[in-house]
């Protein structure tokens, strides 16, 4: 937590310099956040061009309107929320993007019948990691987005609520739902593993 506070303090310093027209401070902020923002954008919509356009417009606008910007309590929070809004705005009916934001399952949940045959030929520990990776891909976009905000970026539930434009309880619910899904998958895998072990002895 202390490291995060120190980082936010540093961000504010560069943010203020950038507002005063310092381009190197602007470049510094860009370098610090462009990669995670890009990754975050792809969680919301799997279209790299759309994400790039949104990031480009956001940073260009930031520079153009720098003298009108206020001090930022958390630059990180501001950038994430800004980007999300921008991406959602660009998905209004008049824009021609083919991938809609999908709150339902993006693809079918994994077929456990085939998972069982895979277990036979793989090390259990390695398989668990591989399955976990796969299951993260199968999560609905919204849940994956919330997971990233909570467990990669370490945003508070209040911040996540503000970024995703939902209530704080709503934010907790999305995160809990995704963990619940993963726990269910983990339990199923554990049962399958036990089943396989039993089978291999008889």
């Amino acid at each position: 937590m202390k490291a995060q506070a120190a980082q936010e303090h540093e961000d504010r310093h560069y943010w203020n310099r950038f507002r005063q027209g310092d381009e190197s401070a602007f470049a510094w902020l860009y370098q610090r956040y462009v990669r995670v923002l890009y990754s975050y954008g792809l969680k919301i919509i799997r279209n790299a061009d759309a994400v790039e356009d949104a990031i480009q417009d956001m940073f260009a606008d930031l520079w153009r309107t720098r003298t009108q910007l206020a001090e930022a309590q958390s630059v990180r929070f501001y950038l994430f929320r800004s980007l999300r809004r921008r991406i959602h705005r660009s998905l209004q009916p008049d824009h021609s993007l083919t991938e809609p934001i999908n709150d339902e399952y993006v693809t079918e949940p994994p077929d456990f019948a085939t998972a069982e045959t895979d277990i036979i030929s793989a090390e259990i520990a390695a398989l668990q990691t591989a399955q976990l990776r796969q299951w993260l891909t199968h999560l609905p976009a919204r849940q994956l987005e919330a997971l990233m905000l909570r467990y990669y970026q370490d945003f508070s539930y209040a911040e996540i609520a503000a970024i995703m434009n939902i209530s704080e309880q709503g934010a907790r619910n999305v995160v809990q739902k995704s963990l619940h899904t993963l726990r269910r998958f983990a339990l199923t895998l554990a049962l399958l593993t036990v089943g396989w072990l039993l089978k291999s002895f008889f």
Partner: protein
Amino acid sequence: MDSYQDFRLDDFISDPAFRHWVLEGTPDDNAHWAAVLRQYPHQQATIRQAREFLLTVHERVEADFPSEQRVRELYQRIQEAAQATSVRPLWQRAGWQAAAAVLLLLGSGLWWYAQLNRSSTAGQTVAARTEPDRLEEVINNTSSIRTVTLPDGSRATLEPRTRLQYRRAFADTSREVFLAGEAFFDVQKNPSKPFLVRANELTTKVLGTSFRVRAYEGDRQVTVAVKTGRVSVFPTQSRRQRDPETDGVILTPNQQVVFGKADAHFTRSLVEKPVPVLSSAELQRLSFTNAPLPGILQALEKAYGVEIIYDETLLADCRLTTSLGNETLFEKLDILCEAVGASYKLVDAQVIIDSKGCN
């Protein structure tokens, strides 16, 4: 510590101490969590799952990172887009004299006064963009350490009386810093862009790792010590112009090298306090009951990444009961040698055991 007993998966992954261990894993973290695992063995599965989860989320996020080229190109487009509605390029290139010349042609006095005011800010932007090579400089004049975050996210911790310089936006093919003094570097991994520390005629090159460089101005020696990863150290002015690295040495964790400027000579040795390179979990498995010393020494080699030279047959009769904790290598060697009546010495970066056997 007691609350860990009832922690569920989401409790672990939200816990700052747990996250720090999984994502950064300092020896202190390893020790702490090894103790937790010992105290609550029923949590082993959950802890492993939580660890897997955090690492996989990280991997998933970082797999979606853009390439460095994309980052560069995107920034260029941002610059162009940002300029689209401001002063025309002509004015910025030429400066205010050209603006005055054109304005005289157009013959508008009022406009000229307006331009004079605007050109001062335009000049600032021009300066920033036509001098990309200007060095950012951080000087630590205080009596305590000072941490700097570099453009790529790497961190440099500067000792007192230290100066660090670097280009504002790291170059396309490498990340370069210039050091006068002493600093510890924690470098972000980026195989496509090596990180170079230029210090007092010596260059240290890494892809992503942590190490310390000591090179005060006027010193006749430069010291580089490695904590994690591998580091390549070579003279900046080398005879091998095409590949100066071949004139240098490669250091692994717990090794350090002293470079004497006068004779361009490298002296390799171990750091003063070698720390384990294995994880706590792996260290835990290295425990011995009445085991022959050669086996224990082999485990020690693996644990610290250090080479130990000993006479296998001579020491085969020496038996000990011990386990590997978080002591430094030398503390451990002292204990072992004391127990069997042996001694050790350090030559280069190797440990040599001297003993008459155990009969």
